[in-house]
């Protein structure tokens, strides 16, 4: 019980992590497949936008 309480206390003291902030432009494609590349970049942008909505502005 006391261990659990200590862990909970440590977690509570922890600073919030910075927002999730991938860089879509950093993604390339090994075979130069533009269609696939757009899918990967779109997903990265979606995740970035989602994190910004949930956690405020980027730390960048």
């Amino acid at each position: 019980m006391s261990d659990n309480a200590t862990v909970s206390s440590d977690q509570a003291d922890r600073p919030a992590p910075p927002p999730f902030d991938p860089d879509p432009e950093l993604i390339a494609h090994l075979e130069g497949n533009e269609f696939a590349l757009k899918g990967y970049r779109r997903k990265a942008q979606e995740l970035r936008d989602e994190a910004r909505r949930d956690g405020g502005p980027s730390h960048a």
Partner: protein
Amino acid sequence: MPAVPGLPSLELLAEEAAAELAAQERRGDALDSKAGVLLGFSGVLVALTASNLEGGTADAAALVAGIAALCAGGAFVPRSFPTLALRRLRDSYLTSADEFTRLRLLDTRIAMYEETQRLLAIKGWLVAIASAALGIAVVLAVIASTMGD
């Protein structure tokens, strides 16, 4: 390598992300192999049932084997390999703080991982459907050949 001040687990998470990406790669290879085997078997079954068996059950077997072949073929479509744009990395991050660049790389790799997971899930479903359809086609072919005797 020393932990980055302020984000002490950053190195650990980067290592875990690299390990997960490698595991993802192996899973993709395994699915490709299964899809290739299923494509071969279902293609042979289509040819055999269409040329050697007659009747509605044989037609159904050929049709279901054809569906299996299509699904396996869809799953077998070469996987895409996302990678890092090194020139962009150099130009945009060479003068950035080490911690900032490491975190951005980690986040970018996670985004790549999540998109690949989505594609692998589709591939996994196609392999599962192809596998089930091939099994049904085999049963139908056996029934058709028995009825034809």
